[in-house]
């Protein structure tokens, strides 16, 4: 167990982009949001909205506008917009960070077993009592367990910072009154949704991660092209020779299919039902069906494929001797 912890730690020593890149990305999100809160909104929103908390106190507002703001606040309260804004800002930030992290992980996975052969450091690792199974599994653990947990932690921290900035700027104003208010239960509900998304996503993406690992251990050079070209070339070839799109659909399904399988797209995002307020986190929680992924034959076939590819990766690392 200690060996595994150390192997995982080692990955973060070597591939510093695994933690630096998401931190920088989160920093960019914070800076851009601060710019929005402190520069863009004050410049473009009517000054009155940024003054009082009470619509009645706002000077120089036409009756029609006053009525509109009143309606917005009322809708906000009745439709639970305050809570929803907490939930959705968390989900939004999590998605921004996790999509970015997917790109980071792509480069990590195609690189991790490739570089050690290129710089021959594999001979150093192989001079230590470490099995190939431990080494390969440590890399998979980083991609499928440690980094996703890191995403949740980072998304939470980022949202707290954003919330603090928002509060500093808009507390006691109409905007503040309509939108943000910290609500632990709403946040917790969003967290449950995010964890479900991550769990299903990890399960769904396991074969993709294993495929990249396999390329990483197998390719003699140009591992990036090996990873990218088939994804583009196979659908194109199928299109040219068979005028069909089965491969493309398969690839698309492997990338985003789990969201469809969780039924998130059909019911919860039916914005029309809520007038201006949009979907509520409670409804997403109710409609969300993780068994659509966790119990699907599709996901399990994917896991079987992933296991086979991981097994092949371990065998190749163990028995190839061109280093």
């Amino acid at each position: 167990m200690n060996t595994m912890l150390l192997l995982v730690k080692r990955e973060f020593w070597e591939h510093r982009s695994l933690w630096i890149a998401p931190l920088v990305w989160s920093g960019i999100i914070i800076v851009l949001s601060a710019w929005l809160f402190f520069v863009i909104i004050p410049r473009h929103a009517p000054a009155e909205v940024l003054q009082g908390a009470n619509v009645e106190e706002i000077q120089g507002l036409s009756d029609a506008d006053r009525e509109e703001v009143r309606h917005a606040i009322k809708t906000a309260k009745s439709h639970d917009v305050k809570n929803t804004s907490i939930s959705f800002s968390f989900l939004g930030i999590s998605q921004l960070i996790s999509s970015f992290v997917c790109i980071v992980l792509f480069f990590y996975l195609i690189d991790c077993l490739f570089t050690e052969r290129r710089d021959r450091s594999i001979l150093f690792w192989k001079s230590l009592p470490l099995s190939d199974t431990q080494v390969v599994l440590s890399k998979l653990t980083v991609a499928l367990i440690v980094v996703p947990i890191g995403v949740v932690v980072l998304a939470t921290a980022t949202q707290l910072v954003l919330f603090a900035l928002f509060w500093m700027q808009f507390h006691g104003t109409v905007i503040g009154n309509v939108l943000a208010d910290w609500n632990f239960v709403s946040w917790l509900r969003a967290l449950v949704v995010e964890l479900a998304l991550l769990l299903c996503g990890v399960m769904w993406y396991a074969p993709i991660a294993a495929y990249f690992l396999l390329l990483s251990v197998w390719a003699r050079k140009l591992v990036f092209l090996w990873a990218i070209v088939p994804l583009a070339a196979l659908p194109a070839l199928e299109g040219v020779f068979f005028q069909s799109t089965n491969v493309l659909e398969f690839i698309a399904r492997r990338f985003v299919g789990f969201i469809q399988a969780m039924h998130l797209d059909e019911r919860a995002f039916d914005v029309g039902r809520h007038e201006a307020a949009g979907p509520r986190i409670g409804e997403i929680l109710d409609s969300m069906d993780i068994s659509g992924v966790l119990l699907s034959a599709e996901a399990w076939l994917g896991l079987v494929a992933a296991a086979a590819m991981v097994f092949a990766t371990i065998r190749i690392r163990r028995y190839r001797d061109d280093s």
Partner: protein
Amino acid sequence: MTAIIEARGLVKNYGDTPALRGVDLNVQPGRIVGLIGPNGAGKTTVIKAILGLTSFDGELRVLGKDPHNERNELMNEVCFIADVAVLPRWMKVSQALDFVAGVHPRFDRKKAEEFLAKTDIRNDRRVRQLSKGMVTQLHLALILAIDARLLVLDEPTLGLDLLFRRSFYDNLLNDYFDKERTILVTTHQVEEIENILTDVIFIQHGKIVLDSPMEALGERFAQLVPAAGNVERARALKPIDERDVFGRAAMLFDGRNRAELEALGDIRTPSVADLFVAMMQPGGAPATSQKEAA
């Protein structure tokens, strides 16, 4: 005593190219064995087979284990330095210590730190910031602190200057070697290690051409510089090699009676380098009429 390495009929082909054609080895504990041969002779293949890094035909036991199938257990007791370039360049010295301490049950961190304290290597440095010699020192510090039964060194001092090479082998002898341990080393720089070896093995074209304890070399081989009138008589005794040294013939004999040779001129025990040159001639020994400038 059980052999540390025991090989019989080791064969390995890379496609159509034979790398090893029936190698036999028997390495006993407490020996320092030099595996010496020209490029492409099969040295690295032998070492890879011993370390379980490649498949092979034939019988091979290392510490009583099959290195190919029992590699994971074997690596608890075997260490190797493959080449100076293999320490990962991104690694900090402190991380290297942390890592090896964490994964190797027989690593003595204090010993490695004491060794490093005698060098200019700082803990916060990354490997890529160290000179080639320092990287080797670091690797040596890690390896010396591991209580292993077999240490395998494949060209460990390649590309280092003389000072580093000398201190590398000094450290190896003084800080590491004892009667329980065995070292197998390959190198091109025969002259530098011949005084630390207990055994020497020559390999050529995938075959062992000489396998002898150092002390037996003097009994078996002799170099003769015959007196002026005795050259033809000496040649008649079939030297395995003959060279011109400052205008005089120097002949190398294998298994000739010493007294018989002494009668013909001055004799001395040849160096490993002399033997190497003689036995690695194209066509192999015996080579009677090869003349080479010394």
